[in-house]
């Protein structure tokens, strides 16, 4: 019964979304206030209806209602509660329902918080948001209905993939979706602005928080996914340039670019049409990501041909929204004339360079991801494009980005002088180069990666500190501290996010270059040495968990009198008939100890893999710091207080 109600509210939500699309658009065109006002209640009602529907599906999963096809395929009575709930979005249908829910909630948020937007703009934003809702709700109901019943319900379900029964992955999809779908808001703002033919500083200010929020969610989502891969896959890889990962990385790159170009629109009223284009592209890449993940087109062209319905539908949505948006853009972009002028050496220029690097980097990822498909279709070559290509073709852009970051961050708007910009930075440059050189000479085996990473990271961090120092002005320590504390939160957010970026760069380079690996057969009780640690396989125990059997190794690592006990496991999930490896990791600030137990050997003993991974946690710590920076910036009161300042604003703010 509840499932049917959920099904029903989903259909109702589709109807409401249609109203939300059509009525406010007409109202805004004709200037009918009543019709425009229909957008807000419609957005809220749509969100409530989908929330109910999602709740109904969750209820079915929690109570293990095996008359629902989806629950049978993805759940089991013995599964822990957390994973019964996360099973709701651990499959195609449920994850699409989550997608629609988040879409509607963002729309409702725009209705709630958009009180100070001009009425026509708000109506149009909500209408575009409603149109996206129509497309996805129809997709859900027509091709992937989660509420299908089974005629003869089985006694138990078929379990969720054991690799997904993990806290890291339970929350990875929701965050990623919050990011993907968050970009729909910027898309809606861009389309609404194009329809109105007006983009100004106020528009830039309204768009920024949504972009920031989406970017923060994407950052967290990507970090969670990469962290999961690190501890779950059993050898500590954290990024594979897999098409599915790239699908989430491309919107991240574009939204990072958008974040920066929206600042130029807000402060200087330049780069307007470019920012609108980026807003369209950012959501376009979200849709492409959904298409890649949901259609399976890149796993194999044949998988796509076997079940083309879903893929073709998403492709249609993509073609419709991107085609429509880009046509509108081509027709209207010339109307968005830029106002601000600036000299060639200025912060505007630095931000343009940032945008060029980020978008071209995104383009490289895009081409690399699609190339196997292109090569097969047009050149009849079956080839792979993997990590080595991306490392070689993508990394230079990030190096360039890191190199210009402190310069751009310190440049004033409009007109800068290179000499003045560099004055506080010479020390940072010298110190980071010196330390990089020192590390290069000290490390054994002259790999270039770690020193380069260190130089870039130090250059950024010291650049951030130099910037804060100059912002603190003159005077004694107390007055400097006071000035620093009174800096706008957005400025702090910028510094913190840039610092996080540096930490991630360093973590990636250091861990990749300096990790130690050891693979051997070990008898119980035997001790061996890895990177200064005495490693002992003390015991191997058999046991069982709630829905799996386990073989657990007890491994003691000792160094300088300090002992650490780790218990790596091998699990077998009998229902899904799948083994998994659970690496045991001792997290530390300077290094991770990463131990995996393998198979018993014929001659007695067990395969044991021991990795020492220096600075591993810095990768994800950097991501979290980046996200924190985004949140700090998001909490800036300018985003809330001055949000409605289109009419009262008299002059361009200096900073």
């Amino acid at each position, binding site marked *: 019964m509840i499932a049917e109600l959920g099904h029903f509210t989903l259909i109702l939500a589709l109807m409401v979304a249609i109203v939300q699309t059509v009525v406010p658009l007409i109202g805004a065109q004709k200037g009918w206030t009543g019709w425009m006002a229909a957008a807000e209640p419609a957005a809220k009602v749509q969100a409530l209806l989908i929330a109910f529907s999602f709740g109904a599906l969750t209820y079915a999963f929690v109570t293990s209602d095996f008359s629902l096809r989806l629950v049978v395929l993805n759940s089991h009575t013995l599964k822990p509660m957390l994973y019964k709930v996360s099973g709701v979005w651990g499959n195609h249908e449920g994850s699409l329902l989550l997608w629609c829910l988040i879409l509607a909630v963002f729309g409702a948020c725009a209705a709630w918080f958009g009180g100070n937007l001009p009425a026509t703009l708000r109506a149009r934003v909500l209408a575009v948001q409603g149109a996206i809702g129509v497309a996805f709700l129809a997709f859900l109901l027509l091709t992937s209905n989660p509420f299908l019943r089974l005629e003869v319900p089985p006694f138990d379900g078929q379990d969720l993939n054991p690799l997904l029964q993990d806290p890291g992955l339970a929350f990875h999809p929701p965050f990623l979706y919050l990011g993907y779908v968050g970009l729909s808001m910027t898309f809606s703002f861009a389309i609404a602005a194009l329809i109105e033919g007006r983009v100004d500083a106020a528009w830039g200010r309204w768009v920024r928080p949504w972009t920031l929020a989406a970017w923060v969610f994407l950052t967290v989502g990507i970090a969670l996914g990469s962290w999961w891969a690190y501890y779950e896959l059993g050898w500590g890889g954290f990024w594979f340039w897999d098409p599915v990962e790239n699908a989430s990385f491309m919107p991240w790159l574009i939204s990072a670019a958008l974040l920066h170009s929206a600042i130029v629109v807000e402060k200087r009223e330049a780069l307007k049409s470019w920012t609108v284009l980026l807003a369209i592209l950012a959501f376009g890449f979200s849709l492409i990501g959904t298409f890649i993940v949901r259609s399976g087109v890149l796993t194999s062209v044949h998988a796509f041909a076997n079940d083309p319905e879903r893929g073709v539908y998403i492709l249609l949505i993509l073609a419709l929204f991107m085609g429509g948006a880009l046509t509108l853009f081509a027709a209207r972009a010339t109307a968005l004339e830029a106002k*601000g002028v600036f000299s060639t050496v200025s912060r505007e220029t630095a931000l343009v360079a940032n945008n060029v690097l980020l978008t071209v980097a995104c383009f490289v990822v895009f081409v690399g991801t699609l190339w196997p498909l292109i090569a097969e279709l047009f050149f009849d070559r079956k080839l792979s*494009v993997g990590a*080595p290509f991306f490392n070689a073709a993508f990394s230079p852009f990030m190096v360039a980005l890191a190199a210009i970051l402190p310069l751009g961050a310190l440049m004033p708007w409009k007109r800068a002088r290179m000499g003045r910009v560099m004055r506080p930075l010479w020390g940072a440059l010298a110190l980071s180069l010196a330390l990089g050189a020192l590390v290069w000479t000290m490390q054994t085996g002259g790999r270039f990666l770690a020193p380069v990473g260190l130089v870039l990271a130090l250059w950024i961090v010291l650049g951030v500190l130099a910037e804060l120092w100059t912002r603190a002005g003159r005077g004694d320590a107390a007055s400097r501290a006071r000035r620093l504390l009174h800096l706008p939160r957005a400025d702090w957010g910028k510094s913190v996010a840039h610092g996080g970026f540096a930490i991630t760069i360093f973590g990636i380079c250091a861990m990749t270059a300096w990790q130690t690996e050891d693979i051997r057969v070990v008898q119980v009780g035997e001790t061996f040495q890895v990177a200064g640690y005495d490693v002992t396989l003390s015991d191997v125990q058999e046991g069982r968990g709630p829905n799996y059997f386990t073989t657990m190794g007890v491994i003691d690592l000792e160094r300088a009198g300090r002992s650490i006990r780790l218990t790596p496991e091998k699990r077998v999930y009998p229902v899904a008939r799948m083994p998994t490896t659970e690496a045991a990791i001792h997290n530390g600030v300077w290094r991770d100890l990463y131990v995996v137990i393998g198979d018993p050997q014929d001659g007695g003993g067990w395969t044991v*893999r021991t990795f020492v991974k220096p600075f591993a946690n810095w990768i994800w710590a950097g991501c979290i710091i980046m996200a924190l920076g985004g949140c700090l910036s998001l909490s800036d009161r300018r985003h809330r207080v001055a949000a409605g300042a289109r009419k009262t604003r008299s002059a361009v703010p200096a900073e």
Partner: protein
Amino acid sequence: MRWLALILCLWMTPALAVEPDEVLADPVLEQRARDISKGLRCLVCRNEHIDASDADLARDLRLLVRERLVAGDSDGEVVAYIVDRYGEYVLLNPPAQGSTLILWLAGPAMLLLAGGGAAVYLRKRRPEAAQAGLSEAEKAELERIINS
């Protein structure tokens, strides 16, 4: 998703990547084998190199790489040997020849294009450029205002 491929790989053999019995005694040779392995694709997995893959085929390929290295092949010869037998698909790093050149040049070409576009835009937005000259009508208007 990634795990779909992993199910396949893990299900076939619950062993884990490089096994101790594969490791060569000579650490230099072993390191070369590892580096080569990271550029070769496990053909039955999705986007995983043979050094990290658990599939039987990946193990066969790892052993083959080591066999050729022990036989005295250079790195390039080992890779060529594998490509001869398994096709271009096995390379994770597509060689920059023929149509693949497009892939490798796409990034730099786009950078030039975007950089050029940005340069043109920046020139147009320079204060001197933006303020350059008044139109005839504006000059006449100015003349009128000054003289009146």
